[in-house]
């Protein structure tokens, strides 16, 4: 007994025990510890690179992988050779592959054999309709699909394949495809695989970081981490007040639990940042300002402003921007500086009154819904009976430039 008390007073021992308890609590909540009622305990089926062939797209075997190249329409299909497999025996489909992030979409395709029903003379076709399910391709540890969430994944498998979509000519190297049963180890691996999810930076990214994982099993990471921490600290608190053990309070125990919890949230975030940096390198590294603009989301706006620039003369020319689309308006205004753009955000009529525009001014319409040019009269017209004489100077799919007379 005194030995147990002695060990339990070692902070590192307590830290390890409490961490394990915390992980167990998280695993239980995640459902990792509970097996499916119907059980899916088939033997693992693996398709290695040598087993794989392709349909649309082209492919070839390379050492340790099968390299698939998307066709001119950006598609590829990988049928998986089957031999008497029952869908109900497997819970997970896993794919280990490289360059998956270049894909825009991937689906699992399958159909099952129809069962012979003695009640009916006319039987259904031997093979059922083709089913499909999206594959979560944005994780950090391969692709894991929980087949138990698919009601149609049941019966004797007739056909199974993986369809990929992405940029034409993109190359994906597939190392292994597996159908795996419902075991504790697979559930833990699935949980780990779903812990991080890559969401490319978008306009809203500067406002919020939700900490999503791949759902299922993880919609938000925070509840799991808080559970880990709460269980660990609660048990520590109980030990501190217990009559039997009563270890001395040690900040290293509580601090260690906090640090693990923080790392658990920070690791996927660091992975996301690093992956984002790689995407930024691919899109922008080594390019000039103009080339970067053409590689980014503003390519069309940049091309338009490059087209109109020579027509504006030396800066600062007054350019009135007419659009109801905020994104177009603010981006075009930015790109027109150091000319003198006027784009009044939120103004219903898109342009001020006609008497505010002077000869020599320019009007740039960007998919405007209210400002129209009448070639017969040579006038720009907009609501409240506003009109002004103008000549068209430039047009492209994004916008048109006019000079006011």
């Amino acid at each position: 007994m005194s030995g147990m008390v002695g060990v339990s007073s070692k902070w590192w021992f307590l830290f390890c025990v409490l961490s394990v308890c915390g992980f167990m609590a998280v695993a239980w909540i995640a459902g990792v510890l509970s097996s499916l009622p119907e059980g899916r305990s088939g033997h693992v089926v693996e398709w290695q690179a040598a087993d794989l062939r392709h349909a649309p797209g082209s492919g070839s075997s390379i050492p340790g992988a099968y390299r698939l190249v998307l066709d001119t329409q950006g598609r590829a299909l990988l049928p998986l050779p089957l031999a008497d497999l029952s869908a109900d025996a497997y819970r997970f489909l896993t794919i280990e592959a490289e360059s998956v992030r270049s894909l825009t979409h991937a689906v699992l395709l399958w159909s099952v054999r129809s069962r012979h029903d003695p009640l009916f003379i006319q039987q259904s076709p031997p093979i059922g309709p083709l089913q499909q399910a999206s594959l979560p391709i944005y994780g950090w540890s391969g692709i894991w699909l929980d087949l138990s969430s698919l009601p149609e994944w049941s019966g004797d498998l007739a056909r199974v394949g993986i369809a990929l979509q992405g940029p034409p000519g993109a190359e994906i190297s597939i190392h292994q495809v597996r159908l795996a049963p419902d075991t504790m180890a697979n559930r833990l691996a699935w949980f780990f695989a779903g812990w991080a999810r890559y969401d490319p930076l978008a306009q809203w990214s500067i406002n919020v970081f939700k900490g999503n994982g791949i759902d299922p099993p993880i919609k938000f990471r925070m509840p799991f981490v808080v559970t880990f921490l709460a269980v660990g600290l609660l048990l520590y608190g109980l030990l501190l007040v217990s009559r039997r053990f009563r270890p001395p309070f040690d900040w290293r125990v509580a601090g260690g639990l906090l640090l693990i919890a923080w790392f658990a949230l920070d690791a996927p975030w660091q992975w996301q940042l690093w992956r984002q940096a790689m995407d930024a390198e691919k899109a922008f590294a080594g390019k000039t300002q103009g080339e970067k603009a053409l590689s980014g989301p503003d390519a069309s706006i940049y091309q338009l402003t490059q087209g109109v620039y020579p027509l504006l003369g030396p800066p600062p020319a007054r350019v009135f921007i007419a659009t109801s689309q905020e994104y177009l308006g603010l981006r075009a205004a930015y790109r027109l500086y150091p000319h003198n753009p006027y784009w009044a955000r939120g103004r219903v009529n898109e342009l001020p009154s006609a008497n505010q525009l002077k000869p020599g001014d320019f009007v740039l319409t960007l998919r405007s819904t209210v400002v129209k040019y009448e070639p017969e009269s040579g006038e720009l017209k907009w609501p409240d009976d506003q009109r002004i004489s103008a000549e068209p100077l430039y047009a492209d799919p994004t916008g048109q430039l006019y000079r006011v007379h």
Partner: protein
Amino acid sequence: MDLLRISFALGLPWLLGTFVVHRIVPAAMAGRRVLVLGYGFLVGVMLLTLLMRGLDAAGFGLHLIFLVPVVLLLIAIGVLLEYRYPRSFGGVWLSRDYRDLPLWQKLLIAVLLTILAIRLGGLWLEVYWRPLFPWDAYMHWATKSRVWTDAQAIVPFVDYDEWLALQGRGVFTDNHPGYPITTPLLQTWMNLILGRWDDAVMNLPWVLVAAAGGMAFFGQARMAGIGPLAALVFCYFLLSLPILNVQVALAGYADVFMGIFYLAALMAFYHWSNTRLFWQGLLALLLAAGCFLIKNEALYWILALLPGFAAVFLPPRRLILLVGFGILLSAGVLLFFPRDLEVAGHTLAGLGLQFHSDAVLPLLQSLFWFSNWHLLFWMVGFMLLARVIIGFLSGTRWPRPLLALCLILGSAFVLFLVLFLFTGYALTVVGQTSVSRISLQLAPSFVFLAMLLYQDLAKIPPVALPAQKRRTGLE
């Protein structure tokens, strides 16, 4: 060639600020180097942009031929002062504090430093490669820099109607012409030194402000007597906050500057209130003044310092009276202040004061459920609660400087809640847009508070619980 220009552009204001802070901070103290470097960058940015305003107001515009010699002259004065009155930059590189650490702590320090280096390095690359991206940066921050870089002068920006009235002569317009101009000036400086407009490279100061904030934080933590490992752990907490990281990665907004400047001011204020050291008070004043140059919200956050001042000087009873008076005064302002009078960019009429219950849940999600701040607010909430309970049970009083800091951040947080639960800005909470950006202006300071609470809790003797007392009695 670009590398040289970038080094020059970033290094000159940093060097200038470092010399200034080096003169202010006395020699020989733990963490001096990082403290001087951290505060040096912030002070350097302030001084540089003030110089730019001054030269432009004096008619010299923003021409490098005038600007660079003035900066170099000031640096030369710093060098001369150092020559005449030498002062040690720092003590030994690895003090006894580090050498005596157990191996596992040294390993953990190495791991944390590696993580921070990877984080900041990755952010540097992201900013270096990615052209200007976020919405507001395009709409009203970088717009000014674009014009000023071309004109090599601070050309005025006015609102839309004034632009029309003036027919655009000598003025420009964007969505927020009245915003403080420090960050656009910093971008302008970068472009002027580069010799071209580059809306990626001009944002590199955003990475440095995060690094400088971390350095200042570490230095002030060591000044507070926090051990090197604990100081680095909290520094890691600060620099790993996702919203802080994303505001650096998608650079162009001023919120991260505001958050770091406010943190720096608050840390210096805390130490001044604890030690009455003149130089800490001076740093607090400088950085607090700098906050006004960054964003309009500075007025509210600096006003929140007033309860902290009161807590430093007043006895508890008078403090409670003053807090009560403050609440009454706030109520009076809300009831009787002119509705159309603009303060820090807002009017009472424009704010539309009423309780928005639909914003409560999204606000809690933003602080506790999403990973915007990792576990920061859970940690602060738990530690505050623990301090209150343990303090009550053990009869331990709150140290005045810590109480002052809690009052400051508590007041700031109340203002934050009023803004997002009682005004039209509640919409931005529901949509999860500006709530995190405004939180970023305060969140770094909460990391500092968490660290001080940890230090204070660690000092409290073990609480005598009833079960222990009975056992003692039986024995």
